């Protein structure tokens, strides 16, 4: 990923005379489809599943929530039914004492919905295994100059478990509030370059001085969240980031839909094309106080 970002920087520098302008396009519409966004982690909390519909690309309105669905969650041993939030329609929650267990596979089932409004109810399902927690020994923050800007690098010390392929999702927090709450700000990497190694002060994420909420002051509490995710979910995040960034004729390839692990089960031979992802992953957090260096 890093190399791709550097390439993009070089290309921008070379396209010295490129300009942009808004353009009006007539795009066809499509039947509304299901969009699922939900995560079960090893944290003890009310985990939520969001159900929404797709809409016309230029609809310019918030997505329509799907209310009244029957949403159940199984960890292979027990199945619970999630309750729809009273005030936030379309959000279905586990009890607040719920937590995911490493090694189990979580299956989400969505019933009693008619997303495409054809009068026939559909059933959707998705599963994801929960990988094990990978602990961080410590983190450190260091100011660096990068792409002509001040950046603060969060460096981590931890052991990448030997003999396996691992996939990581990292997010950063400043004084306990997330500065990477949108998917394009998440960091993802596999361990292809450091399989089984002990990482010594490896840069995991940056705070950028160009973003107001990310600027660090001495004394700020900095948190790094290391999630151990599946290969498929990393692919989903990567594809979502690619689609968010857009593309140009030199780099980026052909536009393509972001993968999903949601499958339509009913009606049989249903032709719905669901979107989104139901993920399960383990989380480990490490903190430090920025010392101003």
């Amino acid at each position, binding site marked *: 990923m*890093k*190399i*791709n970002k*550097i390439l993009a920087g*070089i*290309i921008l*520098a*070379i396209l010295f*005379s*490129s*300009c*942009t*302008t*808004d*353009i009006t*396009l007539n*795009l*066809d*519409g*499509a039947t509304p*489809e299901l*969009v699922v*966004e939900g995560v079960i982690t090893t944290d003890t909390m009310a985990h939520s599943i969001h159900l929404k519909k797709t809409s*016309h*690309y*230029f*609809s*310019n*309105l*918030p997505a329509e929530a799907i209310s009244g669905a029957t949403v159940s969650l199984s960890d292979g041993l027990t199945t619970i039914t999630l309750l729809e939030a009273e005030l936030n329609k379309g959000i279905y929650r586990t009890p607040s004492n719920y937590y995911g267990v490493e090694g189990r596979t979580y299956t989400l089932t969505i019933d009693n919905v008619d997303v495409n409004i054809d009068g026939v109810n559909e059933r959707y399902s998705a599963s994801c295994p929960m990988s094990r927690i990978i602990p961080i020994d410590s983190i450190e923050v260091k100011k*660096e*100059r*990068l*792409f*002509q800007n001040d950046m603060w*690098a969060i460096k981590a010390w931890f052991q990448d478990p030997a003999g396996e392929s691992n996939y990581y999702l990292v997010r950063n927090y400043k004084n306990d509030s997330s500065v990477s709450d*949108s998917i*394009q700000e998440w960091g993802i990497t596999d361990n292809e*370059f*450091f399989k089984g*190694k002990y990482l010594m*002060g*490896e*840069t995991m994420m940056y705070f950028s001085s160009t973003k107001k909420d990310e600027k660090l002051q001495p004394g700020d509490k900095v948190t790094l969240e290391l999630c151990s995710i599946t290969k498929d979910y990393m*692919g989903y*995040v990567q594809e*979502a980031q*690619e689609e968010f960034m*857009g593309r*140009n*004729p*030199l780099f*980026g*390839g*052909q*536009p*393509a*839909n*972001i993968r999903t692990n949601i499958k339509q089960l009913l009606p049989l031979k249903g032709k719905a094309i669901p*979107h989104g992802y139901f993920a399960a992953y383990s989380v480990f957090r490490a903190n430090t106080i920025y010392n101003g260096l």
Partner: protein
Amino acid sequence: MDLEIKTAAIEMKEVVVSSHRKDANVTMNRMSAQQVSIMTIRKMPALMGEVDLLKAVQLLPGVVSAGEGTSSFSVRGGGIDQNLIVLDEATIYNASHMMGFFSVFNNDAIKNMTLYKGDIPASYDGRLASLLDIQMRDGNSKKFSGSGGIGLISSRLTLEGPIGSENTSFIVSARRTYADLFLKLSSDKDINNNQLYFYDFNAKVNHRIDDNNRIFLSGYFGQDLFKNTDAGFNFGNATVTGRWNHLFSPKLFSNYSLNYSRYNYGLESSMNNESNFNWKYNMQDVSLKADFTYFIAPENTMKFGYNAILHNLKPGMITSTGGATSYDPYELPGINAFEHALYVSDEYQVSKRLSVKAGLRLTAFSSIGSGTVYNYDNNYISIDSTVYKTGEVIKTFYRLAPRLGVIYLLNEKSSVKASYARTNQFLQMASNSTAGTPLDLWFTAGKNIQPQTCDQYAVGYFRNFLNNELEGSVELFYKNMQNTVDFRDHAQLLLNKKLDGELRFGDSKAYGAEFQIQKNQGKLTGWISYTYSRSERTIQGVNNNETYLAPYDRPNTFYVVGSYELNKYLSFGANFIYATGQPVTYPIARMEVGNVILPVYSKRNEYRMPDYHRLDISLTWKPLTKKKHSWSGEWNFSVYNVYGHKNAWAINFVDDQETAYKTKAEMTYLFTFVPSITYNFKF
């Protein structure tokens, strides 16, 4: 064969040396080929005043540019990696400078170029769509002379002349851009240390040993460099050609050549932290060729030969520089291949009106070790890998390439021609982009990849008017292609050891009609062409296995290239280009996930970008020179995209920064109204 036909005007202005008859368009048993003289190209308006051979190629019927400002082009619906570009017989893998705004061909060093869009001679194969054959100039054998130019972004200098006697001549030509010199003026330390330039260098030495033996040695070297405080990037080509022409007898000619060509790039980061990397890519070919022409009888000519090429590709090793964690170097598996080919073709004049030619080429292409090849299951998941020793054959393909051509003269002014050609492609580019980038990644046919093949059928009607002053042609073509390569959705092509797993295969076809009227003599010269062309693919694992438009399906293209010589001092040039927009995939819905709005796409290439059009003009002014045989100069003023049409280079879908939940389409365009001035000189 040395033919010098001199056309002398009353005042001898220039000597036009031509190896073809004036009515060749009608009488020659060759179709789907276009020859444009470097003199014509020099008169055409050019972007930033840089006369560019490849931009001229892009204005020929059946050819379309792969995007604004790029050197890459598509021929009859083919891919940008399906064109074989050779400079003095050595392959040029990436013909672009500065992301393609300029090509590697310095016009001062070029003699001639021919583009074969079909009916490719049996002496060549290896690319499905076209052969672009470019020859360097031999150098003036009579006297020492020079030429050059000073432009807004670059300068050129060429020196040529005899060495010792008329039997030996040389030419050297160099060019460098200086855009980055202006960066030095900046007071910002981060900017004035930046480097951004390219240079190239051509050289050729010719020696005539005796009447039966001639040798030449030529070479090209060019490099692009970009460097700022955080990263550096460079790429370039190098070629060397050594050639010996030998006449056994007046009936049997031979040519032997040994060529070397190389393309490389490097990318390194030099950031202020520990996670720097360094990536180097290198590919090279060594090629040996023996080519014979045997004039059996006046009506019967045979050509035959042998060609061997050794390909060596090192896609690169990524090493991390500095840092506390010792990263393992990440090495992409190397690719080696050995290619032999035998070919024979014969052209036979059956009667005054009818001539036929037939050719056959047999190629044996072997993918060889050393190397690691991954093995894949039916879902393209790698299951294991096989390691091959140096020189061990991984897989060999034998491919035949038959070629046929026939011409029937209807009368002195018109003829009909037909041709069939099978072409094979063993080496292709892993590029998911439409325009082509310097980060080309070539890969060969091998254990997981079958060679691509194309069968092209073409028929044409050719007619000349006004005593051959006007040449007209209509050609129809149909191409059927197998083992077409495309890539899975969201393919990771860069830095991927398991590249083969990202490939998907299928069939494709293209068809179309080309109409052209060309005028080569008189005050007004140029051509008008219209092409209707379609191209589509069906690839297993892409677009739900449904047929979709190839990226270069541009149904209508219309080109006007004109030059008018008002008098000895003033001449004008103009180009007009119109092309249907490129096929594109647009979102048909959106979804909200991860706190952002993301697109849900239509089927592959269901929409089109807006149509492309622009007009370029130029004016060349030669001030009167008082003394003869001394310095002569001319000023060239050019305007690219005169009426400033904003041609879409990319269309992206973005969030409106002012209104929440509002999304909009945004178009990126590159050049509107670019004036330039160049001073060219000769001495």
